[in-house]
């Protein structure tokens, strides 16, 4: 398994040139399912399901906002697990570093969407763009935390050093999330803040077609996350190949110069 020639193979487990292939059928199927599912969710959410007795039309955001929020947490969880797997010597592999970076980037996208949709929902319901709602505030901190993580990843350096420090940063950030959540929730509970999805004021009973639509929303957007993750991962792999090949091209050119001289 571990032979001297592994040093020469930056990607892939086997012999031969790196695989620059088309997306696999699995990924394509996931993408198709995501599009169909999301389209059905939107149709159901905007037209078929009834407005809520208490919240009125705003409840329709229930089909998109919680799924998007859940996925951002999922994405960062995947990044954290992947980072842990990278740090653990037995499972150390470039794949996990790539996965962590890809998942974090997609996670940041979804976190931004959580903030945007949460803010719009708050504006629609409470008239304010930002109410320091505990979940949204935690999400805002999460957003900045992982933007920092992505910035750290972009700093150039030797691969293993970069990967290790990024992995540690991902874990440090993820470990902070529950602390942030508890502290912010406690902070807000002292002031009885209006909360978009506060279960104690939960006058919104999600039932019937609304429940199914919400579940469909969760499933479809999770599939969309998987598709985006897969493609971001592929992009990372191609960029790695490109970087290492670019170096070889440059080396070959320099050697060619030496020969001519």
């Amino acid at each position, binding site marked *: *398994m*571990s032979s001297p020639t*592994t*040093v*020469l*193979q*930056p990607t*892939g*487990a086997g012999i*031969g*040139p*790196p*695989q*620059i*292939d*088309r*997306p*696999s059928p*699995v*990924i394509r199927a996931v993408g198709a399912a995501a599009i169909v599912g999301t389209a059905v969710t*939107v149709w159901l*959410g*905007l037209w078929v399901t009834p407005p809520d007795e208490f919240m009125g*039309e*705003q409840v*329709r*955001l229930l089909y998109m906002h919680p799924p998007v929020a859940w996925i951002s947490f999922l994405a960062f969880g995947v990044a954290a697990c992947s980072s842990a797997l990278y740090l653990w010597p037995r*499972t*150390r*592999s*470039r*794949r996990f570093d790539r996965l962590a970076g890809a998942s974090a980037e997609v996670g940041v*996208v979804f976190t*931004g*969407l959580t903030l*945007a*949709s949460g803010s*719009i*929902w708050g*504006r*629609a319901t409470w008239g304010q763009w930002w109410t320091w709602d505990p979940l949204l505030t935690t999400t805002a901190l999460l957003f900045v935390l992982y933007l920092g993580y992505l910035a750290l990843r972009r700093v150039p350096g*030797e691969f*293993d050093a970069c990967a290790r420090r990024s992995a540690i940063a991902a874990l440090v950030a993820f470990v902070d999330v529950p602390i942030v959540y508890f502290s912010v929730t406690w902070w807000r509970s002292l002031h009885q803040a209006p909360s978009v999805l506060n279960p104690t004021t939960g006058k919104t009973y999600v039932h019937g077609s609304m429940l199914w639509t919400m579940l469909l929303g969760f499933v479809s957007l999770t599939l*969309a996350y998987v598709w*985006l993750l897969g*493609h971001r*991962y*592929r*992009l990372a792999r*191609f*960029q790695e*190949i*490109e970087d*290492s*090949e670019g*170096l*070889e*091209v440059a*080396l*070959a050119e320099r050697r060619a110069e030496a020969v001519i001289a």
Partner: protein
Amino acid sequence: MSGYVAAGYVVILAALAVYAISLVVRERGARARLRGSSTATAPPAITAPAPVPAQVPAPEPPTALSSIDLPNPATTTP
């Protein structure tokens, strides 16, 4: 105020679509560049870049991701 609801849906869907498209475009670009250059250089299995350190991790064991990395020589054109 269903204007806000529409805004929320539009923002989410549009952002996801833009991100998805940007990913696909960048990926296709990288693939095209790699296909172009791989004919010009020796396969990396033989010539290693000098700075590759000894700390490069051992070859990856097969993981669940192998479905994404599936080599498809039959479908890789041209």
